[in-house]
């Protein structure tokens, strides 16, 4: 009985955040459909977004932040669901490298997400029920196309910068390829232009964990009042390991026991690292929709920028005048430096203006979200110099 109430609450809250989020929302009606790579139109649809700072009179200081797989638009404000600080508050804010006193920062929730932009937990207008698996499969390019529609709506012709890490970085390079004239500078961080076989494999494990949960109900859990929390938590636990590194796990947890001195000879979370992962899993399911997880991981898997340009990545950036700053981390094994270097090589082939830095850290892929002084200094220096060139 108690569990049923929890689930009902979960259902209503999830749909409420998807339909009426704690964010600004722009709705695109039937006259402005989102043309998807899957060959269908998404219409009507909406985009939820946060903004920080003020757009200047020349409309030249807008910075678009693209969030990662499990991120959202709440980049630099307290999260309305979790009550936690924004996911990139080290980077974005007054006086921060992406300085909201100088730049007008926009961060939209991606299409397929669950925080107010149309996704599988939104209501399908045809039947009044959550879309679930009837939602069309979306791509990184679809996300970017939707963001371009948002910028059109906001009257922003050209972005001073587009920045993002991981899946956000994929959107950054897609932006630079699709709309070079609208992107003055680009900051793809800890990312690549295609998902590797290993990364697709990890995603598939996560998706299978979700789908193996009987509460998933073939994606109809919101309609049927269930919630595949265990499956999604396992998916998150697995994925979270890939965001860290062996060295970081060892440094943080080692083989330390959790609140005990000896093993219990059971399958309790004896080790700190187990307890940590369980915590990561349980907090994730509070704020994230399982079907969104399926759709967004799929979008990353499908991403292969060069494939749209005869397999030659350099063609994606041919003749670009965008200034790039590509950043990778030594211990990132999800998007290793070689992936960033491939972007740099492609840009060099077109003699584009590119900076590339590899930052030494043992914090793995997640380093882009953390207080990394070198990362912050590099982003600040890059944007300062680009700002000078832009007359900001």
């Amino acid at each position: 009985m108690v569990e049923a109430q929890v689930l009902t609450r979960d259902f209503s809250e999830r749909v409420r955040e998807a339909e009426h989020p704690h964010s600004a929302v722009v709705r695109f009606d039937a006259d402005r459909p989102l043309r998807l790579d899957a060959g269908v139109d998404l219409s009507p649809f909406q985009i939820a977004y946060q903004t920080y700072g003020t757009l200047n009179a020349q409309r030249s200081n807008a910075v678009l932040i693209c969030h990662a797989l499990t991120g959202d638009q709440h980049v630099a404000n307290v999260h309305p669901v979790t009550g936690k600080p924004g996911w990139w508050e080290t980077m974005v804010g007054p006086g921060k490298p992406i300085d909201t006193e100088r730049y007008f920062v926009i961060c939209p929730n991606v299409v397929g997400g669950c925080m107010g932009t149309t996704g599988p937990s939104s209501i399908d207008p045809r039947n009044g029920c959550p879309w679930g698996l009837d939602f069309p499969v979306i791509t990184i390019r679809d996300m970017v196309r939707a963001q371009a529609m948002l910028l059109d709506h906001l009257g922003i012709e050209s972005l001073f910068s587009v920045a993002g890490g991981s899946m956000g970085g994929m959107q950054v390079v897609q932006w630079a390829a699709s709309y070079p004239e609208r992107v003055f500078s680009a900051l793809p961080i800890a990312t690549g232009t295609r998902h590797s076989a290993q990364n697709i494999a990890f995603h598939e494990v996560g998706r299978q964990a979700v789908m193996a949960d009987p509460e998933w109900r073939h994606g109809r859990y919101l309609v049927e009042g269930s919630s595949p929390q265990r499956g999604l938590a396992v998916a998150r636990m697995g994925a979270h390991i890939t965001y860290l590194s062996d060295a970081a796990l060892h440094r943080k947890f080692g083989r330390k026991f959790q609140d005990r001195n000896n093993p219990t000879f059971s399958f309790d979370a004896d080790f700190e690292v187990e307890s940590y992962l369980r915590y990561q899993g349980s907090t994730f399911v509070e704020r994230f929709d399982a079907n969104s997880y399926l759709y967004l991981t799929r979008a990353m898997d499908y991403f292969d920028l060069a494939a749209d340009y005869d397999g030659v990545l350099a063609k994606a950036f041919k003749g670009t005048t965008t200034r790039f700053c590509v950043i990778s981390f030594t211990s990132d094994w999800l998007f290793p430096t070689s992936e960033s270097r491939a972007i740099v090589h492609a840009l060099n082939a077109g003699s584009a203006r590119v900076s590339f830095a590899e930052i030494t850290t043992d914090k793995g892929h997640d380093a882009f979200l953390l207080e990394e002084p070198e990362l912050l200094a590099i982003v600040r220096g890059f944007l300062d110099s680009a700002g000078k060139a832009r007359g900001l």
Partner: protein
Amino acid sequence: MLLRRNHDLTMAEAARGPGGSRVDLVLVAAMVERGSRVLDVGCGDGELLRLLAEARNVDGRGIELSREGVNECVAKGLAVIQGDADTDLADYPDDAFDYVILSQTLQATRQPRAVLEHMLRIGRHAIVSFPNFGHWRIRLQILLGGQMPQTDNLPYAWYESPNIHFCTIKDFRQLCGVAGAKMKKAVALNPWGKPLRLTAPWWFWNLFGEQAVFLLSRKPESKGQ
């Protein structure tokens, strides 16, 4: 024009404050046309790129092997990538730059000839500065001391030196011939950073020049001096 150039460079040099001993950088910068596109191979902490941007208004890019150097440059707002002259120059298209500069780095490359050929391919001009291993003090150290030389500019012991391909000014001129480079300008500096007389013969430069700076271009396109 010449006066103004020198004035700018002096200003930029003065801005670096006392102890700024990289006379060779100022010399290199003086060879670069205002507003041109420059690739600095082995750009270190970006001193030359900054000098070129301030005094020459160039659109500069850099390649640097050391991670610390790169990150310092990028944080300064310079367009620099982490890379290796020996392997990464191949990725650049022909004629991408007006000048490709190799400043005090030639002797640390594995394949100086290939590097020079790439420079001449990528840039309309190549500028190379290097320590002259033919300087009399170095000759004397081998002749009398019987050991690999160590000087203020080349302070490493042979077993830990990154410099694996030393050459003399005479050697470099030969390399230019082999690599199809036309010499457009050359300067040799004495240990106090003063240029040797232009009219001095090559053997004199080779003996008394502590370092040298060459401005080169591809042979077929060169008009010569």
